[in-house]
């Protein structure tokens, strides 16, 4: 039984992405006790799956390294991975959280030496790479994984691989008898930082994500460009592994569309502008990018980045919502059909690869929130007194870029601190 020492002065942070880590760290570095709950085996969330950030083109794991170091040396934060909140009861200053812990089958003895992975044979789709590749059934979620500890895929249990893995571990780190457990603990305030998920691209039927292998999403494209990704950073298209040098980016894939997501996801324009840089980085002048857009939303100083990309002769902008994509059965190329609305020009343009700038759907949806939580028409948690000491942070509260998500998370930390400080005053300590 995992024991959690938590009181009404503890802050519960749900979600271990950049928003959740930030909220937890800011509160803890203010002397508060925090329990950080993450459903994946490692912290980092969506941003750890990005290759570069706009507009600096720096690497997300750089900031992740700093946050992990802050975490490692801060005893006030208790991290629970492979954990999901199943219920939250009680009220402001006195919540009780129920958390389900999935078995990792690997205990803290693990040194991340990797012998278990060498020993096993079976592979499963690699969720970290959006299933673009495979991992062994005993795996380290990624090179930056924190906790730096291996995981056994549940499918291994009862198989020969399970025994191989156990035999390979010299340190008694593999525990095949681990069971799912459910724990309860107190918290004075809750920060909900469950982030976002890419909108289900298959639902955008005219673009044929479910029918055409060379139509992929922007998040998948990040993995293709990343040196830690399935193609080791080479931009190869799925159908035939050919180098994709002529790439189209379709904006508002799901966003700003009443058939899909009502809201604008804010980040997609900048993400595509950034990704044109990947194409240039990979292929120089041989790399061509075309962006199909309704409005380019490069807000505030991001405009500089847009202006820079705009000047790039290898990047073409077309004001048009693409009507339809068709993948040629023989060549594998994808033809986009539509009309450039600036002066009315029809096009039927062929590309090696088409990237859907996929919209943000709040992961709040479907989570086990206390019933009364107030959220907006898209499901983002609103700042509303009716939510009491339950605060949305980052992309659970709004479609935000990383910088704004971290601001939001920092703000949510203060809101939580206000509550636990009130509790402290009442409890007189």
């Amino acid at each position: 039984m995992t024991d959690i020492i938590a009181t009404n002065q503890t802050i519960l942070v749900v979600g271990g992405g950049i928003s959740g880590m930030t909220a937890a760290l800011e509160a803890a570095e203010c002397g508060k006790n925090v329990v950080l709950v993450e459903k994946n085996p490692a912290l980092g969330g969506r941003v750890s799956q990005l290759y570069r950030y706009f507009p600096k083109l720096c690497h997300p794991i750089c900031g992740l390294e700093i946050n992990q170091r802050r975490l490692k040396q801060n005893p006030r934060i208790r991290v629970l991975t492979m954990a999901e909140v199943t219920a939250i009861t009680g009220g402001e200053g006195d919540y009780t959280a129920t958390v389900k812990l999935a078995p990792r089958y690997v205990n803290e003895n693990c040194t991340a030496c990797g012998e278990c992975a060498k020993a096993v044979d079976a592979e499963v789709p690699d969720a970290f790479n959006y299933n673009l590749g495979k991992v062994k059934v005993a795996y380290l979620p990624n090179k930056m994984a924190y906790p730096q500890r291996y995981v056994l895929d549940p499918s291994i249990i009862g198989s020969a691989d399970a025994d191989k893995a156990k035999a390979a571990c010299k340190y008694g780190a593999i525990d095949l008898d681990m069971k799912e457990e459910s724990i309860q603990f107190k918290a004075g305030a809750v920060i909900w930082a469950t982030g976002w998920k890419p909108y289900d691209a298959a639902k955008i039927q005219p673009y044929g994500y479910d029918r055409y292998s060379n139509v992929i999403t922007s998040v998948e494209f990040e993995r293709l460009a990343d040196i830690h990704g399935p193609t080791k950073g080479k931009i190869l298209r799925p159908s035939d592994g050919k180098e994709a040098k002529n790439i189209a980016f379709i904006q508002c894939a799901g966003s700003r569309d009443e058939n899909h997501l009502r809201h604008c996801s804010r980040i997609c324009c900048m993400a595509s502008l950034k990704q044109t840089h990947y194409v240039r980085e990979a292929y120089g002048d041989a790399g061509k990018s075309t962006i199909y857009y309704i409005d380019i939303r490069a807000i505030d100083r991001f405009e500089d980045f847009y202006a820079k990309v705009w000047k790039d002769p290898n990047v073409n902008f077309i004001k048009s919502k693409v009507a339809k994509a068709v993948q040629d059965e023989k060549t594998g190329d994808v033809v986009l059909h539509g009309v450039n609305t600036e002066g009315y020009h029809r096009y039927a343009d062929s590309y090696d690869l088409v990237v859907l700038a996929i919209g943000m759907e709040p992961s709040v949806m479907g989570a086990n929130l206390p019933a009364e939580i107030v959220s907006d028409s898209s499901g983002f948690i609103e700042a509303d007194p009716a939510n009491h000491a339950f605060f949305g942070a980052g992309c659970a509260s709004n479609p935000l870029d990383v910088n704004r998500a971290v601001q939001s998370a920092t703000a949510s930390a203060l809101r939580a601190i206000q509550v636990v400080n009130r509790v402290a005053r009442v409890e007189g300590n």
Partner: protein
Amino acid sequence: MAKKTYSFYPGCSSQTKASSDNYLKSTNSMCKYLDIELKEVPDWNCCGASIGYAEGGELPRLALSARTIALSEKANPGMDLVATCAACWLSTREAKERMDHNTQTRNDANEALKEAGLVYQGTQNVRHMAEVLVEDFGFDELKKGVKNPLRDLKIAGYVGCQTNRPFGIEGESFENPVYLDNIIEAMGAEAVPYDQKVTCCGGALAFSEPEKSQKQIKDIIESAYDHGAEMIVTPCPLCQANVEIYQGEVNKRYGTKFNIPVLYYSQLITIAYGGTAKEAALDGQLVRSTKLEEIASK
């Protein structure tokens, strides 16, 4: 399965010796095998189709559908109103949606209906026969009735527009609906994948803009051929007529040698259920489907 009864709206083209006479005949046969009773709406009228707009205007067109529904509600209470023609189904369902969602529209319609001594109540669902097959029977159920599987028959399922958009069959995609392919496969034939499944045949403008709509027809048939189809099957009389009738014209215009049979799902099912060529009204084709006729004669 218990007998099913529906209020039936055949539509102008599905009348004796009208352009989809064969659709009517085969539908009746198909329903016989499926133990479906169709109670024709007495004195139903034309739906106005979508092309009626120029002279018709919004409310008169709506009144047409309102009248047919009202008659159905009166004569066949408690039943779903089922149409076989895509245009009939679409116009009628659209009219229903508008009257049900807008009180003024509904009142206006009823004010007009009053002149014919009728009233629209909105008590019936308006459905297409394909919906009945897919939803009230389902592919497994449809499969059960097959006595004469349509082996080695490569068919392009051509869904077209109006049975597919804007309503379509529940749960089907507008871009790649699969229900027709599933019916074809259920009958033992092979549904070939091709990229013109939901392309518009230009039917509404077949008369007024022949060269433009015949370009559509050409693309559809070409793709069907390219993907190895020996036959096209559709749920829409306008598509059927258009794609079948104008092949000669298309051949003249484009120097092609198209000669592909275009049939209704109801004809396929009738044959697969052991019906005769006559029951399936195969003689009603301009381009005869010898292969299907052979199977029928087995």
